[in-house]
């Protein structure tokens, strides 16, 4: 289990870095889905598999909803980022990783003494990276992915603090609601772009 949870943490770090650096909707959607798988493994450290699997299913449903909407709406080629901006975001990501590695043991010691370090690190990593993603992008699709990641990070930590079926259900509704908001935004963007193109 120790190896599995460490692997999950590594996965979380890689996928959140990918989502921070790259802006190609297919890659982002796959990274988000993989992120949910890694989060599921970390949640099983605190919850029974039967309950933790809810987070995985909901996460995959949310990823599928926004990815499928993007697939339907996407007509244009993805915009290519300059090397400088990729490098900048990569460096920012590395900075976040460094901060989390410094901060997590202290936070675990002072606030979450009963939690595994890997849970604190995994949750904080997702939250930190998502905050950074939110700060560097204005696209609705990417913003929703960041918000979903942020909530996943929080849920990893919160699952270890409280186990409640009602709360799990309500958080599932929040995740799906966020995904639906994303679907709405993506459809609106495409509809607006479509009408702009039609206009003379």
């Amino acid at each position, binding site marked *: 289990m120790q190896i599995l949870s460490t692997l999950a943490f590594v996965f979380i770090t890689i996928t959140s870095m990918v989502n921070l650096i790259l802006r190609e909707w297919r890659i982002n959607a796959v990274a988000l889905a993989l992120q949910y798988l890694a989060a599921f493994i970390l949640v099983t450290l605190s919850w029974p598999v039967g309950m933790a699997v809810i987070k995985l299913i909901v996460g995959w449903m949310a990823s599928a909803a926004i990815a499928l909407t993007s697939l339907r709406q996407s007509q244009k080629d993805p915009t290519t980022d300059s090397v400088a901006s990729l490098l900048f975001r990569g460096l920012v990501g590395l900075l976040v990783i460094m901060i989390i590695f410094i901060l997590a043991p202290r936070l675990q010691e002072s606030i979450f003494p009963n939690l595994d370090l890997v849970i604190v690190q995994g949750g904080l990593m997702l939250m930190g990276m998502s905050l950074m993603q*939110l700060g560097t992008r204005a696209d*609705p699709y990417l*913003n929703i992915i960041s918000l979903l990641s942020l909530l996943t990070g929080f849920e990893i930590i919160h699952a270890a603090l409280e186990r409640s079926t009602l709360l799990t259900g309500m958080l599932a509704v*929040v995740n799906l609601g966020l995904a639906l908001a994303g679907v709405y935004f993506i459809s609106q963007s495409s509809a607006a772009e479509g009408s702009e193109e039609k206009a003379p």
Partner: protein
Amino acid sequence: MTLSTPILWVALPLIIAAVTLIFPNRMLFGIILTSASALGLALLAAFFPEDPTFLLGSLVITVEESLAILGRSITLTYSILPFISFIYAITGLWTLISGIPGTPKLFRPISLAITALLTAALGVEPFLYAAVLIHIAVLASIPLLSPEGKKPRPGILRYLILQTLALPLILLAGWLLSGVEALPSDSPLVVQSAIILGLGFGLWLGIFPFHSWLPMVSQHAHPVVFSHLMFLIPSTIFVFSLNFFDRYTFLRTLQNLEATLSLFGALMIFLGGIWTATQNNLKRAFGYTILTETGFTLLALSLFSQGGLNWMLLLFPGRALGFWLWGYTISLIEKHNGSLEIEAVQGFAWRYPILSSGLLLAQLTIAGLPLLALFPIKLPILTAAFRNGTTLGIWVFIGNLGLFLFTFRLLAAFIKPNNALKPETFSISEKTHEYLPILIMILVLVILGLFPNLIEKLTGTLTTFPQLQ
């Protein structure tokens, strides 16, 4: 037969909202169903007996206060019913005017569903779960606030992001607070928990410096929708926040809490007022006015040891009616005039005097003009602010003055002769069904200004929080 209050005020409106949602194009059906349900539920809550057992022929109906769901419960006690009655009444008022062109079709069902969710948030046990219910309500508001067929604006994204950031903070603060209860009050964890909680509420309520989305969303959302949601959600959040003060003694006695709350309140009133006074777009100005109003609620909350909680609750009815009138008139002005820039409404009062007066009176009500609904409540708050510190009082006074200044700018623009539009005498171009609600609402605002004790029943909500009385 046993019913429960959550079935009546949470499940039933959600079912009605779902039914209305199935027929989004049947406007009249939607308006009648949602308004009648909301106003009916408001009346039921207002006159609900303390010992609810009803006889229907041979059938005995008992209404319990609690409903168990997945191991937890929603409890709507008799003492919270005045506030529930109030939020359903204002939802009913807003759905009545949802037939104005441009109002999103989904407004009627979603506003009823949001009211039901917020009602559930007021009664869910453990009370912290309310944070999730409030966030679901926020998510439901997204399709209403982002105009259909238009690209999502940065404001709505910012709104969603900041509201979502608040959720983990509130849940985490709740968990921390339950842990620090046993610690001595000088423990650093107490202050850390209070800061996390404050950040969460700051994000939720759009408190400075997390307010930037307010004017951005206000400018592009439909005024009826925006005025309703920006009244309903923050007001419920303020009432929900009382749970924290009620349950955690150390939070009530936290050093500098009153000073911090009043500082942020005064700052928001000051900045909101100044920004409102300098706006050229009427909808953006309203976004900043909301900032001022949140500031007043914060200020009232900070005066809890001097009866500020009563003022906080009494601010709600006058504000709701002011917002309603603003939403109604501005929607019609937009319909008739197109642009809502202050230069574009020059001479508008010559053609539409009642609409113009309605908007001016809405602004003046919110600003707290004597004889109107908010004056009897804002005056003691302002007096208490001056009593607590002259500087604080001056900040609040200047901020509030900003609201008056904007109204006078608007008045000047409305009556400035506009040669392009010609008429040199006043003519009433509004139709009866357009101006009648305005006249009725103005009358209600004046009555509430003259007889503020008519809304005193709302303060009964405070009995839900025994430690705060």
